């Protein structure tokens, strides 16, 4: 019981101390928060979906930065997976997706059928998908970069998961893969093993380069990891229009994806300057790689990364908001 007394007394003492000590700034005194609302134009709120990969984050950060600072929009970023972001077009909770990789199924569903989304043109980035090997492997066995020679090395790629064949590490589940069909149709002595996440793929390649291990797997660019370990792409039979039409019979490389932007129909018709910004936004793979590197490797916040790039590339930004 005495203990409780003491606790109470201590509490009151602390209280007294804090009361006497309280000078200090009051909430709402500072005028620092006036910056954002100063230039409020007709833009209003701009709901920007942020899909979970760094390249997308780079696009979103730059667009959000320009929309906030040049157009006076109030940008609400929403961290969402692709499917859910597209779903948000219909419910009015998402205005724009600013890096879309193909997704013909979603385009059909939301642009053609439900008519809740519209295409807002390419981002200027080109997306490559394919099979990659770590740089040391490409250097020591240059012929591995041609698919014709893959069977020669199959035994080297064996792992505990691949059941006696070479292991082809697949598997960011977010993306369509034809690899099982490719392995079968190109008669490769490989088994597709699903790593299951981008994290798992990156760790595999990172370790393979460091310890000179044999790894071949599904990957894509632009991707921030390429600036850490520049993976080399294996040449598959060339892509021709329609060669991937039948999922069972695919025997060619993945097409080059022209990454594009998708906006909700409502947003496109709103006359918001943010829509014009999204529509006009284009940049190169190098631009995106720089911002992605700021975020992923230099560990800058997306806002700081965007600020740095925008200040260095004012001319490009002017073209988007002219």
């Amino acid at each position, binding site marked *: 019981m005495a203990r409780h007394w003491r606790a109470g007394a201590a509490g*009151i003492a602390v209280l007294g101390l804090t*009361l006497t000590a309280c000078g200090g700034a009051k909430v709402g005194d500072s005028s620092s928060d006036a910056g954002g609302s100063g230039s409020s134009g007709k833009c209003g709120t701009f709901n920007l979906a942020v899909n*979970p990969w760094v390249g997308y984050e780079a696009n979103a950060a730059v667009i959000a930065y320009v929309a906030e600072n040049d157009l006076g929009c109030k940008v609400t970023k929403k961290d969402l*997976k692709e499917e859910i972001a597209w779903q*948000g077009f219909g419910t009015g909770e998402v205005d724009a997706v600013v890096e879309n990789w193909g997704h013909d*199924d979603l385009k059909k569903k939301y642009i053609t059928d439900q008519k809740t989304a519209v295409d807002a043109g390419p981002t200027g980035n080109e997306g490559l998908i394919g099979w990659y090997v770590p740089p040391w492997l490409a250097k020591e066995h240059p012929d591995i970069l041609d698919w014709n020679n893959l069977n020669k090395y199959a035994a080297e790629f064996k792992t505990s998961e691949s059941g006696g064949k070479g292991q082809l590490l697949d598997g960011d*589940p977010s993306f369509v893969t034809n690899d099982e069909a490719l392995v079968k149709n190109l008669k490769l002595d490989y088994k597709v093993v*699903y790593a*299951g996440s981008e994290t798992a793929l990156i760790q595999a390649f990172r370790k393979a380069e460091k310890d000179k291990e044999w790894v071949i797997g599904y990957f894509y660019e632009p991707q921030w990891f390429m600036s850490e370990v520049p993976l080399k792409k294996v040449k598959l039979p060339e892509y021709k229009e329609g060669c991937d039409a039948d999922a069972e019979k695919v025997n060619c490389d993945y097409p080059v994806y022209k990454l594009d932007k998708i906006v909700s129909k409502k947003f496109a018709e709103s006359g918001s300057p943010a829509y014009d910004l999204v529509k006009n936004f284009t940049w190169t793979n190098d631009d995106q790689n720089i911002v992605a590197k700021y975020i992923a490797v230099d560990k800058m916040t997306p806002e700081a990364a965007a600020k740095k790039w925008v200040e260095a590339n004012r001319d490009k930004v002017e073209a988007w908001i002219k």
Partner: protein
Amino acid sequence: MTVAVEKPEKTRTAEPAAPVKETRKVSRSMVVGAILVVWLVLFAVLRGKQTLALAAADLTDLHRWFNDVNDSIGANRNSNPLFLYFFNEIRLVIDTLVTFVQELISQPSADRPVPQIGWLGVVGIAGYVSWAVGNWRVALLAVAGFTFLGLQGLWQESMDTLALTLSAVFVALLFAIPLGVWAGLSDRFNRIVTPFLDFMQTMPTFVYLAPLTLFFLIGPASATIATLIYAAPPAIRITAHAIRSVPETTVEAADSLGATRRQSLMKVLLPMSKRTVVMGVNQTIMAALAMVTIAALIDAPGLGKTVVQALQSLDVGTAFNAGLAIVVMAIVLDRVTTAASGREEAARGSKNRFLTWRRPLLGAGAAATAVLIHLSHTYVWAAEFPGEGGIGSAISSGADTVTTWAQDNLSGITNAFRDALTNGLLNPFQTLLTDSPWWLVGAALIALGAVLGGRRAGLTTAVCVGLLVGTGVWSDSMTTLASTVVATVLVMLLGIVFGVWMGRSALVDRVLRPSLDAAQVMPPFVYLVPFLALFGATRFTAIVAAVVYAAPVAMKIIADGVRNVPATTVEAATSAGCNTWQIITKVQLPMARGALTLATNQGLIYVLSMVVVGGLVGAGALGYDVVAGFSQGQLYGKGLAAGLAIVLLGVMFDRITQAAARRTSA
């Protein structure tokens, strides 16, 4: 942990029956052996036939039908009255609630750049409430814990997580406690509700995350509902259990004194089960915190977002820092609610003078807290947590260093272990399951279920096997089953070793317990990134992940069981000249048999709940199907089917092990 409360009665009943069925047990294990031999022989003959394999991108009609249903809901959402007048109303209520709590403690509200109550106020409230419902020790822990969140540089994120967790727990309890009371009073309702609860707890969240946003839009409502679906069942189960465990004689006494049903509920049943009900609240809070990272995928604010974003660039340090904040919050909330449930007795035991002083002290505490709240509302220094979160960056870089060291120095040893386990145990077992004809595996499972669990368990198994075939992902289910069984065996090995150690020594228990709590609430991906570097994207990594998550539960239950072996029995054995090894193997473990079966049951269920995480690190099979279904529209139906398959595996195991447990103890 969920069922840990049921354990005492089980161990109690385990004792007297032991000698009776020695003879039966021998014959049962022989039957099990015979089933396995027949299976192996037929496997050798029929290998590779009728395995029902389905390639990763292939779909069945059922999967396509699920897709169509999902699409049509999406397309008709805006014209359907069910949406306009039902789901939208629910969404509005929950959104308002969450936004209210957020503006109170985490988000800037209307015209203020900071929330209504700043860090000083929140820390004050946490300390005061913990003291009022618990004791001064947990109050100190709460103050220290919450201050630590600020020092980590994660104050706002933590408060967002706290706001969402509290709202979800509040809404969950609003339904769970009445439903639990009902299930406790009515056997029929209990039977009806149990499968639903199983479903809510074992269905992977990924499966219903996307449809939820269709029903309740992107925002706090969806995140809250996703959380409460997973978090409400423990409260319902434990409340029902609490009501049931009130001694019958007490209720009869109340009845004979002329109490109405209502009176006996309000004056007898509820007060007497209060302590256990609070344990249910505790479990609900823990389960809600386990959902933090998943809810971040649909834009739930808070620590989960920090973890997810850091992992996009494999920034283990930052992710670990945020994960640690979740652990700290979980430990604080756990200890406070545990203290609250134990408080009743403590108060009753102490002298009366305590009670006389308690009231004025509570008043004084409330006044002091009010002053702190006022300060934090008015002054910037008390509103925004001062400092740059230097401790947070120190923790991040520390975690990075440890990770790098482990990756550089341990991989040789770990790979040898991985290959031994994979080639020696996992691969043969998996081949047996996946390459046998489906009807052979099904028949073997049903026979095993019937022998181990009795006729009803056999029947349940038969239904589950039938439905598993119906889901169209039979082959993947068998792959997952193999990994699950191997993981459970490892969980039990660790559980017995550490559980016995903890049960025999209070000191070991106190030292290990916080790490066990941490392993249960730390978001898996934080430790999986280094595991991926050590073991690669393999089934083994997935098994390790499951073991890390499930072993603590098994350890806690077994420790509890060992501790409940009467001290006199152990002393008798000691005086009879038994050495420590003999005491453990001949006395403590056999007498804790009920706890061992319970630990197996919970271990299996917890392992199954990690199947999806396993799919993210190389386990493939059902886990990958679920994740891919979440990410790709055309695979949605298959993901749903895979989720159902996981539920079916869970129900099958649960019924068999529970029936087996009843048999060994009855």
